């Protein structure tokens, strides 16, 4: 008979802890919480101008409107009007100048949202327009940046280019992406005694909301408590942005001395908050006859929006991933955060990584087509080596490279070579429809690239019945972090998962936390919770060995029991005994990631504790009359180390892939000439729907993997990396565009590859092929 095991320990594919509540509607989100009596509803009046001085604000009529309790402008903020996470100077309400269409100018709290809106409608604001900067090109020309440029160099790019047998120069763009978390931004601020403030916020970063709210209210941080049980999706959009929402609610609540809720409706949310950065890449590359990349000089310019927010780190991460899996002997990378009069772009799953990675995937694809080889062969040719050719542009040695073996496995499983041949012959026969196929690898660096953020705390209590209360600094946004960390604690105590109570993230329980971001939630909080559990466990072992007079080494926790020498007792009974013996059954745990460091000025260091890998193969079918397409098959192989919960990890991989596919296909943000975003609701902004799922979708965890770095149970981070597996979809579309012109020219395609962009790329490729242009000069489209 097998030894009894606990239910829901590490590596068990248990359901999300809230699954039952999700399907019954019983899971409580911030907007579902009962409102305290007297709660006011807030509405934000947004700027209709992209860039203008505020000449005059007249709120007199609005103040007299029925139900209005408080109106605040920048001048009414008691403390500093600044929620900048990296650089100072990022206001929540426009301080005399509006910087984008959608910028909050003032906020109104009233007895209902309707009353607040009605009051907003009679506010009079006079503006004096100033010229706006809207595009990356304009910003580059005007040297309008939100942060100093970042550069990385290895070898000598200029010399490498000069010596290379072939050179190409190009320009390429990718669009941004709205997070489209289903739950919009929301916060409820409840005034407490002593002028304190309780803030219930849908946030990935409670400590940031706490700190910024305190700053806005001119109070010490201890005066603000922030709590979040769960979010209805975050994806990075609730890392810094909630400080604006909670800040406005708190300022209104402080002024009205009543609770205030601010829930942005979808349109206001999309007009106000930042998104994934769109990027412009300009590159010059040198390569040899085989397609070996010899030298690269590339500029990556991101549209940051009106303030820095997290853009400096996002541009950094774009550079950190502009190598992806490829060794570049002589390389120079430069990154710019362009200041524009648009929403301040922010964190979004991948955090610049996807844009940098896709830029080099586009380049490798182009090189392969120029040398007339299959792009997969050229990818493999350029992969980092394991012992040589393994140093990144930022001088970190890649020590855990498994991409070659993963590629071989997927190439075989997906029958890449055979399908390539089939597709080529199918395309020759088919006039209207064309197929495309591509494989794309992913290597994603894990750790916050700002060293001090790589820390986490946890708080664990054991009660006298053996039930456990778990708290840590991580937040739940659907990714299953709470479940995984609880599994770690259950494993540690060897008790069933059901005995571990997951609790809301609260700044009063675990302080000074980092955002749940950078895919690091489980790595950091899992380790911290394990440390707390181990602390209690060691006290229990000490107690048991004394109490039962056995050696500490013969105390063993297994299957809800504790074995002490020859006897065993239920875990709860031991806890009760220990309590009576006055043993402390509560502990905090702390973790900081070792080994990492980075010198941004020099562009060298080891920013990443380890890398997560993945590879995907995608096949598409394209309609050359309209540019419409279908992803017909996708094969994904992804490395999560030793999985803490394979079901949850699989969900992250599949969900990330589809989200990435949305970014690269149908999700198009469109601003008009005045700088107004016109795609600000699902009627106009199209994230993937169920039908967009590839009908043939094969997804596997890479089972042979275990993290070589000492992470929690040797697992790997999984939140962001799989998003970039969707690069394969975009590359497959590009391949099909090439096929539409019989592969006679290198196709030019920007992202997102909407049906329109695909059709225009086909028309362009065919026109160039017809003109018998032997070799395209640049890869810029449109």
């Amino acid at each position, binding site marked *: 008979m097998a030894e009894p095991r606990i239910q829901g320990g590490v590596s068990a594919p248990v*359901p*999300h802890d*809230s*699954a*039952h*509540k*999700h*399907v*019954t*509607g*019983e*899971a409580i*989100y911030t907007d*579902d919480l*009962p409102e305290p009596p007297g709660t006011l509803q807030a509405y934000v009046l947004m700027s209709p101008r992209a860039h203008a001085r505020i000449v005059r604000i007249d709120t007199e009529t609005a103040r007299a409107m029925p139900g209005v309790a408080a109106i605040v402008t920048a001048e009414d903020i008691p403390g500093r009007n600044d929620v900048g996470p990296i650089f100072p100077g990022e206001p929540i309400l426009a301080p005399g100048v509006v910087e984008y269409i959608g910028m909050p100018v003032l906020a109104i709290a009233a007895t209902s949202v*309707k009353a607040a809106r009605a009051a907003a409608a009679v506010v009079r604001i006079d503006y004096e327009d100033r010229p706006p900067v809207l595009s990356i090109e304009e910003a580059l020309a005007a040297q309008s940046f939100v942060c100093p440029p970042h550069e990385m160099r290895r070898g000598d790019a200029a010399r490498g280019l000069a010596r290379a047998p072939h050179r190409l120069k190009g320009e390429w763009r990718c669009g941004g992406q709205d997070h489209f*978390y*289903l*739950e*919009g931004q929301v916060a409820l601020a409840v005034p407490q005694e002593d002028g304190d403030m309780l803030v219930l916020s849908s946030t990935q970063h409670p400590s940031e909301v706490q700190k910024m709210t305190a700053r806005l209210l001119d109070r010490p941080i201890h005066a603000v408590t922030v709590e979040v049980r*769960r979010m*209805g*999706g975050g994806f990075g959009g609730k890392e810094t942005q909630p400080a604006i929402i909670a800040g406005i609610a708190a300022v209104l609540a402080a002024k009205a001395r009543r609770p205030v809720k601010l829930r942005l*409706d*979808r349109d206001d949310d999309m007009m106000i908050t930042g998104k994934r950065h769109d990027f412009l890449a300009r590159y010059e590359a040198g390569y040899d006859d085989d397609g070996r990349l010899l030298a690269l000089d590339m500029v990556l310019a991101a549209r940051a929006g009106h303030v820095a927010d997290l853009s400096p780190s996002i541009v950094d991460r774009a550079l950190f991933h502009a190598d992806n899996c490829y060794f570049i002997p002589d390389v120079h990378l430069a990154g710019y955060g362009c200041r524009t009069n648009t929403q301040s772009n922010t964190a979004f799953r991948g955090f610049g990584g996807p844009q940098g990675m896709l830029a080099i995937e586009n380049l490798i694809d182009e090189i392969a087509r120029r040398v007339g080889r299959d792009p997969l062969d050229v990818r493999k040719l350029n992969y980092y080596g394991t012992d040589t050719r393994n140093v990144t542009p930022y001088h970190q040695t890649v020590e855990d490279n498994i991409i070659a073996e993963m590629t071989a496995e997927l190439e075989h499983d997906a029958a890449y070579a055979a399908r390539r041949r089939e597709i080529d012959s199918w395309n020759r026969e088919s*006039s*209207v*429809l064309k197929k495309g196929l591509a494989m794309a690898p992913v290597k994603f660096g894990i750790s916050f690239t700002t060293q001090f953020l790589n820390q986490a705390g946890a708080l664990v209590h054991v009660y006298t019945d053996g039930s456990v209360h778990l708290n840590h600094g991580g937040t739940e946004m*659907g*990714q299953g972090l709470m479940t995984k960390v609880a599994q770690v604690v259950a494993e540690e105590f060897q008790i069933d998962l059901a005995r571990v109570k997951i609790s809301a993230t609260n700044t009063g329980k675990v302080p000074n936390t980092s955002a749940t971001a950078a895919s690091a939630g489980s790595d950091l909080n899992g380790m911290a919770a394990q440390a707390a559990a181990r602390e209690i466990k060691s006290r229990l072992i000490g107690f048991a060995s004394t109490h039962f007079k056995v050696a500490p080494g013969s105390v063993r926790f297994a299957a809800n029991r504790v074995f002490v020498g020859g006897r065993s007792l239920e875990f709860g009974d031991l806890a009760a005994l220990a309590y009576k013996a006055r043993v402390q059954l509560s502990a905090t745990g702390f973790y900081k990631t070792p080994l990492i460091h980075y010198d941004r000025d020099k562009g060298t260091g080891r920013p990443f504790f380890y890398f997560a890998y993945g590879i995907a193969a995608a096949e598409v079918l394209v*309609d050359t*009359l*309209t*540019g*419409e397409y*279908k992803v017909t098959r996708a094969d994904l192989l992804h490395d999560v180390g030793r999985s803490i919960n394979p*079901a*949850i990890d699989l*969900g992250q991989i599949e*969900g*990330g892939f*589809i*989200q990435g596919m949305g970014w690269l296909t149908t999700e*198009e943000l469109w601003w008009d000439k005045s700088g107004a975003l*016109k*795609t600000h*609701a*699902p*009627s*106009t902004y*199209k*994230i*993937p*729907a*169920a*039908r*967009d*799922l590839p009908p043939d979708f094969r*997804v596997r965890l890479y089972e042979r993997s275990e993290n070589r770095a000492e992470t929690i149970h040797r697992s790997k981070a999984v939140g962001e990396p799989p998003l970039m597996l969707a690069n394969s979809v975009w590359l497959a579309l590009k391949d099909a565009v090439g096929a539409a012109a019989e592969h006679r020219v290198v196709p030019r395609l920007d992202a997102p590859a909407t049906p*329109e962009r695909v059709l225009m790329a086909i028309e362009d490729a065919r026109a160039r092929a017809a003109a018998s242009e032997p070799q395209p000069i640049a890869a810029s489209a449109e």
Partner: protein
Amino acid sequence: MSVTDTIRFLLNGQERTVDGVDPTTTVLDYLRTHERLCGTKEGCAEGDCGACTVVLSEPDDNGVMSYRAINSCIRFLPTIDGKHLITVEGLKDADGALHPVQRAMVEAHASQCGFCTPGFVMSLFALWHAEKAPQREDVLQALAGNLCRCTGYRPILDAAMGMYAGPAEDKFDRDYSTFGRLRRLARITGLRYAGRGKEFFAPRSLADLADILRRHPEADLLAGGTDFGLFVTKQHREFARVVWLGDIAELRRISATDTHVEIGAGVTWTDALPVLDQHWPSFGELVRRFASPPIRNSATVGGNIANASPIGDGPPPLIALSTTVTLLGADGEREMPLEEFFLDYRRTALRRGEIVARVRIPLPTAGLEFAVYKLSKRIDQDISAVCAAFALRIAGGIVTDARIAFGGMAATPKRARLAEAALIDRPWTLATANTAAAALDRDFTPLDDFRASAAYRRITARNLLRRFCLETTGAAQDSRIAYG
């Protein structure tokens, strides 16, 4: 006269009587604020994300209970009078056991953040009742109006297939009392409701309607409400007096003669689909891409016409098929070709006090070639960048009549007269199609907007005509993608 009715309906099996709320209160707001049933979520307030999905249940014409998903975020509360409103909180058994749909969702790991989940559960609940052995295609259609940002949908589709593993009956099937209780709530004369100084009428006959419109000619007419709802939730407009057409049986009739099909203006797109599919499969295909099931369960054929949107998907195929529209006013009926109904951007031939009563579509006869194509960024639940409908009459290989209508190319749904002229009396060949395609450039001056550039609209308009030719002449076998 007094307007004193209360709104009466069943909510998760319990009778509710509502008074004193604004008649343009959405079902969603009612649930969340008045009932404190917060399982139903607002994701967009425009019927495009599905987080607010609930199910309306009522006996169909044969006395069988139907279960239809709707978007509660844009549905006004008085319109559910007399029906059974089922929300995600109402699915569990009394002993707490999960509904087969809910259990399948848990077992398939089909929720992550959980915010969209109640909506998916309700769409699947409607499917579970409607279809006992669905194919993947049925599931995709049932879920076309539900967006999930976390899972990537694969586990949700697995749940949809797995939800039949449990019991074949649920508590709703077993509760025979609902039918009688709904019957007792049924009204003989229409609902007349007032709340917060606003009035709401739901007449049950054209005579009642005429009476109301005579007294309140300024009243706003509400059909399916899938656009009207947005006037409230997005534009934040106030409506003092609303007349809902959804309870008028005479407007909800579909009838067929030897030569025509007549569809009442109040027929929902869900109910219109079978007859359209039967006679014009291509039209049926379009209707299956017309928004989503929850929208089609509310939205009406008449509403899509009277709304006069340049990007509505109903008018182009209807115009191409020589549809006439009948308008009904105090002075009686008048009938006109549908293309003459659209005067200018959002301006129609409707006079004050008139309503769209029905459309009349000639049945296909020998020699008719018809197809309609829709272009959008996303296949499901998207608004057309271009909608192109072609109806040609071919005799002996020669085009004898041509009707081409486009949406998204002008301020109204509009015929392509020059392209039509370029086809008539010509052999139906790719060469002719190319000539006519060139004429399309002179027919239309499309705009650049966030759905598409003018250039894309022009190129694809031409190419869709070419596609029509390829498909109807058999010149290309492989011209369409199967979006399964």
